[in-house]
């Protein structure tokens, strides 16, 4: 559901007689695709909900095994106060982690492209941090980091910074060679080359990494909350899921899960929109396709 494609297709010319059969077909197909892109997922959703509901009703399943969609929705409304507070905590951690991932990822990427030595020294460790599962590191982090927020943030950051780092590094290194030569001929300084050539070249790559990092920082935040596990005021959605699980409050687990998924989708959509707005004037990925 990229936002690029949701542009209205130009209305078919009124002078329909001028269009040959092929063109008419093409327009019809484009219109059908446009409608289908939105209606088909909704149809699938409705069908799945109905099947889910029927399974629960026909098998007479108790709500602590599998609640029906109606009950989940009811719980979402009923427990909104608790769930929304928890959601705010999780979103806060996620966004802070994303912000730090962007700063850390871009900062390291710039450092790496400015100095080969830096890259050779530290890149392997960035990879090691990335490939080590966060659930394995998180307990250690919570032993050594006193502040719970700082611990959560560190976990989420560890998961999220790598795509920003690797994509931005790739982007900074993929500036057009002709333009590099040109900058050299015109005697550009290192800073000018970075500012006017490498950073703009890296922007599309960075935005790609950012979209991945957005989802990962949510995952990192949720996983960290699971491990941290402390409750009470100021705990996030993951803790609410754990807690509801202990109490066999399955409908609330589903409700919290829906909120987490929705948050992920919204983050992705926002970042896609940001990417589209920043690139729409010049980058291939954001161009309107004619025909």
């Amino acid at each position, binding site marked *: 559901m990229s936002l690029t494609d949701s542009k209205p297709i130009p209305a078919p010319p009124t002078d329909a007689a001028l269009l040959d059969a092929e063109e008419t077909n093409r327009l019809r197909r484009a219109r059908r695709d446009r409608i289908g892109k939105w209606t088909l997922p909704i149809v699938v959703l409705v069908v799945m909900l109905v099947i889910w509901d029927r399974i629960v009703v026909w098998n007479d399943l108790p709500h602590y095994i599998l609640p029906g969609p109606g009950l989940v929705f009811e719980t979402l409304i009923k427990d909104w106060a608790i769930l929304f507070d928890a959601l705010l905590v999780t979103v806060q951690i996620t966004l802070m982690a994303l912000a730090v991932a962007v700063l850390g990822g871009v900062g390291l990427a710039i450092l790496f492209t400015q100095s080969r030595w830096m890259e050779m020294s530290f890149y392997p460790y960035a990879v090691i941090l990335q490939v080590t599962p966060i659930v394995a590191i998180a307990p250690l982090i919570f032993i050594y980091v006193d502040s719970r927020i700082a611990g959560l943030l560190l976990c989420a950051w560890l998961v999220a910074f790598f795509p920003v780092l690797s994509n931005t590094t790739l982007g900074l290194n993929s500036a057009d060679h002709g333009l590099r030569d040109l900058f050299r001929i015109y005697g550009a300084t290192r800073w000018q080359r970075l500012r006017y050539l490498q950073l703009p070249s890296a922007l599309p790559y960075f935005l790609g990494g950012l979209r991945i990092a957005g989802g990962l920082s949510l995952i990192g935040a949720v996983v960290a909350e699971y491990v941290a596990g402390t409750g009470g005021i100021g705990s996030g959605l993951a803790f609410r899921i754990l807690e509801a699980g202990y109490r066999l409050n399955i409908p609330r687990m589903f409700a919290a899960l829906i909120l987490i998924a929705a948050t992920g989708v919204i983050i992705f959509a926002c970042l896609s929109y940001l990417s589209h707005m920043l690139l729409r*004037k010049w980058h291939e990925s954001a161009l309107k396709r004619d025909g």
Partner: protein
Amino acid sequence: MQDITTRSDVLRVEKVDKTFHGGVVALQGLSLDVRTGDFISLLGPSGCGKSTALRLIAGLLSPTSGRITWTGDHGPGDLGVVFQEATLMPWATVAQNVWLPFRLRGVTYNAVKDEVLEALRLVGLEKFQNSYPRELSGGMKMRVSIARAMVTRPRLILMDEPFAALDEITRFRLNNDLLALKEKIGCTVIFVTHSVFESVFLSDRIIVMAARPGRVIRELAVGAPYPRDEAFRTSSDYAAYCREASDALHEAMGEPA
């Protein structure tokens, strides 16, 4: 020798060799004197070192032996470059692209707005100053690239097969426009090409080069006066010069003429 020294007031290239890693001799014994107002073509088959020569002059490479000296009062770096690709920054507008050489000298856009717009006017693109490169055709992109190369009015403009990727009609038009531009602003150009017709039409001197190792085998003067127009393209003089250059090129490629 004394004579040459006094005449070359832009650039002297003296017995320049360039050997790349692995012993590939890209260029051997290139000597060249560039005078103000010259239009020099380096003509030759691929691998003859003509692009290497240009990169040496641009300072992107340094010679293995020999010397390249800027002979005027302007220092090195006072040059504009046009590559085979337009090499525009896709994220910047046409005007911002043309501003680049000034921008890298730390000059603000407003300070040189008139120069930028004048350069765009000279290549016939003043209406496109706010367009992005992707909105332009290949020929128009190349015009922007030319505008960028001449916006600072450099002592020397280097062109590396700038029109090779364009279709013939566009190439002819750009050839005409380039000469018109040269008349207007009196620039000095070194032009790399593998087209005999292009080199004869544009230049007053043609350096014919051979490959393996890259070397100069003939220097031809094209005596036809500027301005040259479409009439020159169909004249018998033009045909004769083309014949001469073509023979030299065949010799360069080691084939009977």
